[in-house]
C-alpha cells in the first residue's frame, strides 16, 4: 500500500528536476528573465508589478465582500444557515470558466451591463468592457475567487464563542467596539489564511485576463508563462519564469507562516 502511495508522491517530488537541469547547463534563459525582471523598465518587471497590483486590489475587494458575508452567516444565519451555506458552497461545483463565460455574456457591447448603465444614464456610449480593461480583469478575479475566501472565514468565525462577544457587550462595549476589540483580533489568522488561499491561485491565473480582456496591456505573469511554454521555442524562459514565481510565492508563504505564528502568540498571551 505504502509503495503505491509513495510511487505516487514521487512525480510531485521529481517536478523541479526537468526544469532545473537545462537551466544549469545553460543560464541564458534564466538571466534573460532576471534581466527583464530587475533592469529598469524591463518587460517582465512591468508584468510582475501589474500582477501584484491586480492581485492586491482583488484581494482587498474580496476581503471587503467575504468578511461581512461570512460574519453574517456565521453569527446571524439562524434557521436560514443551511440554505445560505448551500449558496456559498454552490460556486465550488460550477466551473470557473463557466462563471467567466457568464460575465463575458453580460459585459459585451450590447450586453445587459451596458444596457443597464445606459438606462440609468451613467454612460451614453456602450463601454468596451472586454477590450483590455484592468477593471474587468479585477472584477473577474474577485468574482472567481471570493467563494474560496468566504468558506475558511466562515469556518473560523463560526467557532468564535458568542459568550466572548456578549461579555464585551456586558462590560459596556458598543457593538462596533466589541467587534473591533474581540472578533477582529480573534479572526486575524482566518483572514491571513483566506488571503493566502486566494492569492496563490490568482498569481498563477492567466485565463481570467485572457477571457475578460485578451489584451497584452493587462497580461499577468501567468499569461507570460503560458505564452512561453505553449509558444514552442522558448520553453526554458517559461520554466525560468515559473521558478521566479515559485520563489516569490515561497516568500509569501513564509511571510504567512511568520504572521500566523505572531497572531497566535498575540492571542495566547493576554495583556
Amino acid at each position, binding site marked *: 500500500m505504502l509503495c503505491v502511495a509513495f510511487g505516487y508522491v514521487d512525480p510531485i517530488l521529481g517536478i523541479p528536476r526537468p526544469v532545473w537541469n537545462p537551466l544549469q547547463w545553460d543560464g541564458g534563459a534564466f538571466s534573460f528573465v532576471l534581466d527583464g525582471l530587475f533592469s529598469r523598465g524591463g518587460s517582465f518587471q512591468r508584468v510582475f508589478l501589474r500582477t501584484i497590483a491586480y492581485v492586491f486590489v482583488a484581494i482587498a475587494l474580496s476581503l471587503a465582500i467575504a468578511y461581512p458575508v461570512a460574519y453574517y452567516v456565521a453569527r446571524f444565519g439562524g434557521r436560514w444557515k443551511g440554505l445560505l451555506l448551500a449558496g456559498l458552497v454552490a460556486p465550488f461545483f460550477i466551473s470557473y470558466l463557466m462563471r467567466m463565460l457568464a460575465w463575458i455574456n453580460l459585459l459585451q457591447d450590447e450586453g445587459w451591463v451596458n444596457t443597464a448603465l445606459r438606462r440609468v444614464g451613467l454612460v451614453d456610449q456602450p463601454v468596451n468592457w472586454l477590450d483590455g480593461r484592468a477593471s474587468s480583469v479585477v472584477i473577474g478575479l474577485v468574482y472567481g475567487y471570493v467563494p474560496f475566501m468566504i468558506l475558511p472565514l466562515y469556518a473560523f468565525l463560526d467557532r468564535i464563542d458568542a459568550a466572548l462577544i456578549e461579555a464585551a457587550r456586558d462590560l459596556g462595549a458598543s457593538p462596533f467596539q466589541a467587534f473591533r476589540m474581540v472578533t477582529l483580533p480573534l479572526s486575524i489568522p482566518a483572514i491571513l489564511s483566506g488571503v493566502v488561499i486566494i492569492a496563490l491561485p490568482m498569481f498563477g491565473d492567466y485565463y481570467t485576463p485572457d477571457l475578460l480582456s485578451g489584451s497584452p496591456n493587462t497580461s499577468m505573469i501567468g499569461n507570460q508563462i503560458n505564452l512561453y511554454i505553449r509558444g514552442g521555442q522558448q520553453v526554458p524562459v*517559461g520554466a525560468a519564469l515559473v521558478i521566479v514565481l515559485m520563489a516569490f510565492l515561497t516568500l509569501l508563504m513564509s511571510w504567512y507562516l511568520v504572521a500566523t505564528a505572531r497572531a497566535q502568540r498575540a492571542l495566547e498571551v493576554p495583556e
Partner: protein
Amino acid sequence: MSRLRHWLENPWGTPRWLRLTTIVYLVWSIVPLLIAIRFSFNEGRSRSTAQGWSTRWYWGTPGSVWEDPDLLGSLRQSLKLAFIAVVVTVPLGAALALGVTRWRSRAAGAARTVSLIPLITPEIVMGVSLLLVFANLLTFIPFGTPAQAIGHITFSITFVMIIVRGRLLSIGAEIEQAAQDLGATPLQAVRMALLPMLVPALIASAIMVFAISMDDFVVSAFLSSGSGTDTVPVRIYSNARGAPTPALNALASLTLAITLVIAVVAFALWQVARRRGGQSGTGVEELAA
C-alpha cells in the same frame, strides 16, 4: 436618505447592513449564471439579448451541442476524465491517508508534508511541471487522455488525503486494535472494521474529486493532445472570445446541470451513510468546515 440610514443602523438584533451585504453578494454570485443559462435557451444567435425561447442550441439543429462533434466530444472527455479520476484517486488517496496516519516514523511526516504541496501550488505551476515531466522524463505516456488523467489524479489526491485523514484521526487506532485482538488479520481489521466507518469520508472525497476534475482547466489544457481531448472548460476558453453561438452556453449549462445532479445524489448518499454510521449534525456545515 436619513430614513434609510436609520433603518440600516437598527440598534437591536441583526445589523441590517450585514444582511443586505449577504443578500447582495448571493444575488451577485448567482444571477450572472442564471442569465448565462437563459441565453442558452435563446431562439436567436445572440448571447447578450433575449430573443425568444428554444432548445435548438441543445439538439436538433446543426451547431447545437448534440450535433457539434467538438462540443459533444469535450463533454464526453470531461466526464471520462472525472470518472477515471474518481475511480483511481479515492482508493489511492485513502490508502495514502491510512499510510501516513498509522505509520509512525519521521518519513511519514515528510510524506505528509510533500503530499500537501499541490494544495499550495498554483495550477499553472502544476500544469507546466506536469507538461515538462511528460515531455522530458515520462515520454512513454502520451499526451491526451492518459497524461490528463494522471494530472487530475495528481492534484486531486491531496483532497482525498485530507478528508480521509481527518476522519481517521477522529476514529483513532483502537478500533483496528480491538479487531485484531478478536483475531482479525491486519487486512481483515481494515476491511471489516475500518472501511465501513470510512464510507462517509470516501463519498465526500468522491464528490470533491469529481467537482475538482470537472472544474479543472489549466492541467487539462496543458496536457491536451489537440482538440480531440479538450475538456469543457478548455472548449469554453478557446471558443469564448471568438464568435460563439448560444451552443457554448448550452454546453456550459449542460455541464453545470450534470455536475450538480451528481453532486446532489452523492450528497444524499453521504448523509445516508453518515446516519448509518451514527454521526450527527447537519451535513453542509461539516463539509464546509
